[in-house]
């Protein structure tokens, strides 16, 4: 398949764009593979890509029940950052960040990762200290973080309510300069094309309906496109984790599925350059290259598999956005949508062999899934290929809850809606 480049664009433009080929093949399922990855979202596709690229395992199928990238990889607010507090998370997301920084080259696909920075605002001295704690934690793990004062924030983000009479006046903020946004769909498509070029079969409209077992061992799946056997079956289905794992007889997991709404405004000329988050509530906003403000807030806060939210949360998010940017009241909301989040009990993910022999599990991404895409696939591929976790995901086990070795980034305990 042809490399993408400016020259190839030019050549094709001159021939009326008639000669472009599909970005990935549409093969029929083969009877068996070395590895089946269930879930054609960002994590499943990147897992397949790194299995092929890093481990030379190319006899791989990615099974997607709908169209490729129909889950959260195409439903998020596109933020990429590694500004975590706890060392296990910082190391993992920092690895992800490094993969992001070279991803467009790696995939020969422009995922438009733009490092315009993520700025977390602080509104009280205590919040400044919390941000400093996190920024310092990042710096001690080799990450980048800058603590900004009030004036620096004001200069950086015009339109922000910097008045002393603001309900929660801005005192400063924590900036991660290397963070930013990427074009979410392009990440799915780029990984799909990259995996496909290395021989991976991407099977769309192929829903898993059950698992093939030999004793305890998982040896394949039944699907709407027939039975497919595999030496290893990997599950990376985010919000659908509960449903898919039930097919394997795993009825209980430290996961709840919740809906997270996201919002886009009409397209505007450049207004907000960074990703800015509010400290007087929970809100993050950035502006896409097309000009729409992309923003979101809290979960609706109840278990659901429906990709739809409700009005109270919509109103909450808007009031938080306007508390930060009172100049936006006349801007209009254009679209909203919901994504189903696999909320874990401590807010951190699970990337692990098991829980059944022959099976591998990747879930619990909470809000963190999109930015984790490269590292999640990278670590999951390692775990599948070697049969054991890489040091970067060694902490993300399933038994850490029972053992009390929690990675509770927000300090909220087993209340998934607060993570």
């Amino acid at each position: 398949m042809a490399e993408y480049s400016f020259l190839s664009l030019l050549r094709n433009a001159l021939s009326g764009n008639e000669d472009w080929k599909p970005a990935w093949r549409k093969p029929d399922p083969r009877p068996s593979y070395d590895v089946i990855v269930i879930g054609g979202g960002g994590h499943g596709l990147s897992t397949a890509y790194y299995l092929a690229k890093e481990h030379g395992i190319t006899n791989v199928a990615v099974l997607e029940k709908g169209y490729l990238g129909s889950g959260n990889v195409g439903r998020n607010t596109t933020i990429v950052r590694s500004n975590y507090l706890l060392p296990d998370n910082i190391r993992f997301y920092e690895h992800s960040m490094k993969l992001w920084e070279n991803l467009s080259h790696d995939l020969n696909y422009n995922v438009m990762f733009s490092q315009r920075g993520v700025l977390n605002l602080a509104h009280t001295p205590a919040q400044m200290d919390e941000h400093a704690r996190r920024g310092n934690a990042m710096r001690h793990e080799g990450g980048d973080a800058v603590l900004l004062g009030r004036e620096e924030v004001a200069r950086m983000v015009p339109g922000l309510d910097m008045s002393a009479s603001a309900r929660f006046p801005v005192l400063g903020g924590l900036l991660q300069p290397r963070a930013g946004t990427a074009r979410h769909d392009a990440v799915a498509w780029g990984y799909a094309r990259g995996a496909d070029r290395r021989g991976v079969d991407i099977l769309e409209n192929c829903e898993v309906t059950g698992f093939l077992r030999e004793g305890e061992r998982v040896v394949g799946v039944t699907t709407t496109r027939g039975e497919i056997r595999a030496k290893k079956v990997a599950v990376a289905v985010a919000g659908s984790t509960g449903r898919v794992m039930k097919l394997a007889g795993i009825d209980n997991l430290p996961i709840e599925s919740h809906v997270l709404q996201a919002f886009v405004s009409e397209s505007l000329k450049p207004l907000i350059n960074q990703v800015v988050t509010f400290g007087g509530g929970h809100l993050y906003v950035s502006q896409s290259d097309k000009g729409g403000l992309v923003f979101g807030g809290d979960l609706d806060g109840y278990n659901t598999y429906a990709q739809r939210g409700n009005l109270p949360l919509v109103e909450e998010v808007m009031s938080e956005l306007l508390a930060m940017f009172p100049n936006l009241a006349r801007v209009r909301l254009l679209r909203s949508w919901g994504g189903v989040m696999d909320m874990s009990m401590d807010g951190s993910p699970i990337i692990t062999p098991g829980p059944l022999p022959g099976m591998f599990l990747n879930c619990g991404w909470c809000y963190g899934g999109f930015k984790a895409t490269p590292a999640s696939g990278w670590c999951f591929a390692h775990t599948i290929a070697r049969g054991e976790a890489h040091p970067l995901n060694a902490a993300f086990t399933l038994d850490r809850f029972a053992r009390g070795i929690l990675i509770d980034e927000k300090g909220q305990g087993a209340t998934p809606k607060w993570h």
Partner: protein
Amino acid sequence: MSPRRAHNGGRIDRSTTLRFTFDGTAMTGHAGDTLASALLANGISLIGRSFKYHRPRGVFSAGIDEPNALVTVIKGNLREPNVPATQIELYDGLTVESQNRFPSLAFDIGAANGLAGNLFAAGFYYKTFMGPVAGPLKGTRFWMFCEHFIRRAAGLGRAGHEPDTDRYEKMYGFCDVLVVGSGPAGLTAARDAAADGKKVFLAEQEPELGGTLRWKSAAIDGRPADDWVASTLAELAALPNVTLLPRTTVWGYYDDNALGALERVCDHKAHAAIGEPRHRHWTIRAKDVVLATGAFERPIVFPGNDRPGIMLASAAARYATEYGVLPGERIAIFANNDSAYEAALSLKDAGAEIAVIIDVRAGVSVAARELAREAGGELLLGYAVTNTSGARRLREIEVQPFADGKIREGGTRAFVVDCLAVSGGWSPAIHLASQAGHAPQWDEALQAFLPPAPTQRWTGAGAFTGAFSTAAALGDDIAVNEPEIEYDPAPVFEIRPSGRKSAKAFVDLQHDVTASDIRLAHREGFRSVEHLKRYTTLGMATDQGKSSNVPGLAIMAAARGLPISQVGTTRFRPPFSGVSLGALAADRHGHFKPERLTPMHDWHVARGAKMYAAGLWHRPMIYGTGGETVEQAYVREARAVRETVGIVDVSTLGKIAVQGPDAAEFLDRVYTNMFSTLPVNKARYGLMLREEGIAFDDGTTWRLGEHDFLMTTTTANAGKVMQHLEYYLDCVWPELRVHVTSVTDQWAGAAVAGPNARHVLESCVDGTRVDNDALPFMGIVRGEIGGAPVTICRLSFSGELAYEVYCGAGHGQHVWDALMAAGRTFEIVPYGLEALGTLRIEKGHVTGAEIDGRTSPRDLYLDWMLSKKKPYVGSAMVDREGLLAADRIRLVGIVALDDRPLNGGAHIVERLGEEPRGSIGHITAFCFSPALGKYIALAIVKGGKARHGQRAYVSDPVRNRFGPVEIVSHHFFDPEGSRMHG
């Protein structure tokens, strides 16, 4: 030739002239005009520029589906970008700007993009801009360099930086029936429901009710349609059970028949009246909903279909009939169905010349032929428009014979026209129904998606259901006289001349998505509807694809060789059309959160206290006296507490009345330590865990009676603790007879602390003694201060002899004043949170910075509070291996060895290197300790106590503070507690 005002006709008020400016040019219009109709009346046809190629664009529709004519409305220093000119009601003084053009609308250098159209085809940016693999532009740098320019070129209108000072408002509405849309079907439904005695809301997005009846030429009950509308509206308006909501767009259909609606209260006025909101956001709870939202006309896609002067046929007719505006002098009609023939006649009646009617069909109904004859002009059946020309507006069209879905070469004819009115059939406005549930159904005859089966309580009416005629909308009981035309269109969505290279044929006018882009998406495998949408951005512009979705889908279906029904449709999500963010925030715009004030708030502010936001509360941080720094102020305040006496407002502490015969048992279960053994009139410090064995909250609980406890919580966790208690009482131990009630606001609290605290109380408390016998440590007495009843508990957060004095909140200021007066002799000093923090750091007491939701009681050396005699919430999990691990971070004290301030959030390392590495923990709180004369801090550090006496370093790279520290016990001051027991 250009559009102009017709000599007569329309519903505008020609006697009222309104002034407005467009790009600085003064113009006039009439009351009843929209900006779009007024601009057309002024001969303006170029109104906007498209998103990608910056092509000149004019008015395309007459409603909410407008993709082209977007402008920015300026009010004072506020800008409202991207408003369709078709949605702006003219008022005197209206000021608007065109957008997405530089330097001017007529000459826009961005139009150069159009020259490289093939290069900028769908998805082009995914394939380039990656930049070099190595060198200074490696990584993301080259992309970010390019992106800088792409961002500036993209975007539509420009929003302002000024805070919007207008008012927005929320409104909750409850009704039996919400009727959405006030066309013939909506009016009938509202009238019928009202007649049944139902409480009815009738919402209409336009300023005037009546829908298509305002511009369609039907006769109802033997009267002109507008007469019928007027009398029906008068009838409805007179009914007490009917609420009419003009200018109200129902935009979202949520669970359990909750609908969001935006009422534009003041957009059509130069100024709002006193107290009037600009927008009002309704949440309407309707027992039943009638969706009478009508249908959108859709265009036919053909080369050169985007020039100003090309518009939907119904829009052209509406300009002529409703606004008295001719969109052109010499008009061509291009259609695949009969409805455009009605439009032709309306245009002719308004004074335009119909040059030609072009229809892709070989034959049309008798009614259509009759309309064509009346409208005049040539009727070209079996023809299609294949090209257009004109620089900034339409000048000429080319037509060719068309049969079996294909252009037949030869026979090209040209017509000089200044307006082309197009109709490609009708799509019911099913958006709300789709939001409410299932996927819509494709109807082969109508070539349109019909609403899905309801999953919520709604019914459909009129054109929404695919019944497009007025007669069908009104039902059998009402006689309607209208042409009996066929609405079923020929299944023709795109005219695609073969062979020669043709002009761009636009599907999504605003986003410049062409038919070739859709075929390119198909070629590259982006074939599902969602991939198509995401890859090409089809339907993602401000009009949300109201006119482009179906043609786009049809072109993809053709490319795939599948019927449209098998290609599917994208699910509609809220909002149906843009909703101002201000309206959604409503009264919280400008007032994000309420303020919680203590009874002594005004006193603190009057005393110059610097206030601190603690959740929703305001608390004094310091009481600065002239010229003091924060540090000087808190050191002065804290020193006063250690040396004489201070007073602090503790009213914000959460206070929960825990009452009932099982109250003591309940407390034993929720606290780690024992409360059933607490005597009446005694208080005890308590610790709560989460079930996981992690510290949750702490505070003192006072036993006021055998069955009557007053629990205090931290300010931050008051709400959470309350909910925690209620959860256990309702869900886990419903058998316990305990009531919990929030009494935070019932009591004002003042802590009086310091060696002279007892003297202060002695001189102002009546009705009780406060000496050590009457009021020992953790004892409680009741008395009066200044005539107000008080409850006094001797407990200490500062480590000094201290008392918390509680009184009714309404007496709070009175008691505070009395305490201040009594303290004058002892130079009593009011102190704020900083001094409070200083005193507790010196004592090593923990607060939220240490109880951060991750620390176990052992991490905080609170193991002594874990009762072995009884189970409690958290007891089963507090001993898990992870919580006992040796490398857990645990509470210690820190002393700066370089006599420089420390910082909360600074990390601790064993050694300093080139780069900050090897964190072993972090500082949770720091102060200058007046008692020790040093900068000290509390920290949570790996190993905890085992490191006492060790040298370490503070490493605070985000504040560039590094230096030596000593790790010590967190009990810095008076570890034996002799002072507070004294």
